[in-house]
């Protein structure tokens, strides 16, 4: 409980730091958003400019602006998007599910496929497929993720058009809830495969190394000596320990995954936060940008907390049972 509280405190501290940093950066920005709007409007009177400055709070001292901003965020008010002229929060909540869906799908593909490939090549380290896995993992890690996406886009739009290459839903309407889900899943294939390619590579490499390590352990020999089937040995005994590095990495890489999602969303026109970030940067839509950075930090932090929880489930040595351990050693020394 105490660790949970301190974790929450550090999460709040980190998020506050994110807000402060983003705000400082915006202060350094050479272009004033009001000037941008005025430029797009094709000029405006001095009074209107001053009025707009006051509206966005740009005429107050920096610290006051920061305090106002933090106060607003606490109440869930992220301001108005300068470009869309609608609340940033609603804009972000519109885009958030698409990004979370893309991230979850890519993560699932990467963990399942990566672990499976890793196990396979750990069991047959000299086999042909094992070499192929090593090669593939190096390639997946070296290709720019947006380039992989562009290559798939070329392949599936002109050569072999079986997957849609743009957007999240068909322009022509689809029938019913089931049809909608199917349609989204169909659109999800290419973005998810692209984003996961990097992580399939990484996780297959990681799980290969850790499975090689685990398969040499004494308890695996014991399990084999007991006459368990190979499947029980691998999936019942070895995998429990073999997957721990993958879970660790998963938590650490959430930020990178989100960054990758930004690029992939831009390639496939996936209507998520990443593409919104790209559009907002082009439009100097600072309120939206601030909120995107804040929400992406929230996504990373939440994902890290979930990973920590999963960790406790996978590895009972970590998490709830820490306390009895010192007592046991005391008994042992007595």
């Amino acid at each position: 409980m105490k660790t949970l509280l301190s974790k929450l405190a550090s999460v709040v501290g980190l998020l506050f730091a994110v807000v402060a940093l983003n705000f400082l950066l915006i202060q350094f920005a050479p272009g004033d958003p009001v000037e941008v709007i005025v430029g797009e409007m094709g000029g405006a009177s001095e009074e209107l400019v001053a009025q707009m400055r006051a509206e966005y709070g740009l005429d107050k001292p920096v610290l006051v602006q920061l305090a106002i901003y933090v106060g607003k965020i606490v109440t869930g008010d992220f301001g108005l998007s300068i470009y869309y002229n609608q609340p940033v929060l609603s804009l972000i909540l519109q885009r958030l599910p698409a990004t979370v869906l893309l991230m979850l799908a890519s993560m699932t593909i990467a963990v399942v496929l990566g672990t499976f490939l890793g196990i396979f090549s750990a069991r047959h380290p000299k086999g042909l497929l094992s070499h192929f896995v090593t090669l593939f993992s190096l390639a997946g890690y070296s290709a720019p993720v947006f380039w992989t996406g562009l290559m798939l886009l070329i392949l599936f739009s002109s050569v072999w058009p079986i997957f849609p290459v743009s957007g999240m839903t068909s322009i022509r309407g689809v029938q019913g809830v089931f049809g909608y889900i199917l349609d989204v899943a169909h659109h999800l294939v290419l973005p998810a495969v692209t984003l996961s390619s990097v992580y399939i590579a990484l996780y297959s490499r990681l799980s290969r190394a850790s499975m090689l390590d685990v398969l040499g352990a004494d308890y695996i020999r014991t399990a084999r000596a007991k006459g368990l089937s190979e499947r029980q040995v691998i999936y019942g005994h070895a995998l429990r320990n073999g997957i721990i590095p993958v879970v660790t990495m998963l938590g650490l890489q959430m930020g990178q995954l989100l960054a990758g999602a930004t690029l992939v969303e831009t390639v496939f026109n996936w209507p998520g936060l990443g593409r919104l970030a790209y559009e907002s940067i082009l439009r100097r839509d600072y309120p939206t940008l601030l909120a995107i950075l804040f929400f992406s930090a929230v996504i990373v932090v939440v994902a890290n907390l979930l990973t920590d929880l999963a960790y406790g489930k996978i590895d009972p040595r970590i998490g709830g049972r820490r306390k009895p351990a010192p007592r046991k050693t005391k008994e042992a020394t007595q």
Partner: protein
Amino acid sequence: MTDATMEPDIAVTDPAQSPARQPRQPMPDKGMEVPQKPAHPVTEFARAFARNQSAILGLVLLIAMFALTFIGPFFYGVDPYEMVDMPFAPPGGDYAPLGTDYIGRDILAGIVTGGKATLAVGASAAFISVVIGILIGSIAGFFGGWIDAALMKVTEFFQILPALLLAMLLVSVFGAKLLTIILSIGIVSWPQTARLARAEFMRIRKLDYVAAARTAGAKNAYLIFAVILPAALPPLIVAAGLAVGSAILFEAGLSFLGLGDPNVMSWGLIIGQNRNYLLDAWWTVTLPGIAIFVTVLAISLVGDGINDALNPKLRRR
């Protein structure tokens, strides 16, 4: 050891050498170990590296990319900014062997000239990130305590921020100039090096020779930079090499998002400027992408090779 009469335990404790290379030694007395004269560490390293096929492949690819970048322009002197043919002329045309881009500029010339900027951005951004990482990691690992806790909080802070988003923001705020891009990439990508440096410093600072230096009156700064850092360098150098690869990917990503320096030809820039036309002209994005891919692949192959060769545990295999 191929010698059948050799005691098995001697063979096991013998320093790592592959059996084929081992010169035959006179039989030692039973139970007595005659240690071989160990090869010079550099020779040992080079041998281990040379035995690694993928590392050699990486080295060859890397040399090829360097040759393309630094010698190529002398053999292929076409101006990458000049329009040489119709826009979107396909590869194999009369004027541009690898085709032209959306305003008729030669793709091959772009690739040959763009390598310099790509490699320069990669190397200098990696250098900045490694310097920041080593500074923060070494101070945290050396002093420990609250300094460590505070610096690790800062590191954690930079790790939860999606690096690319932060770099996008930095570049768009301070302008898409080469220097801004380099600094932004360096500023957002140091945390991993910091963690590595911290771990190394925490391990090394407890060693006897550091205690000896301290007893001899060395000051903290001297201990950090002259006593501990040299011992911590090998894994950090490998990390720096790999950081060049990821910085190249980073720069390409920024260029793709339209945040590359439009005045400096680079591989990422060619992709970024042509990506809207990729269905009409696949070569404009495919070919520079291959250049990036091969370079990063070569760097990671060589980096892995150096890592393995430095690691005595792996060397035995």
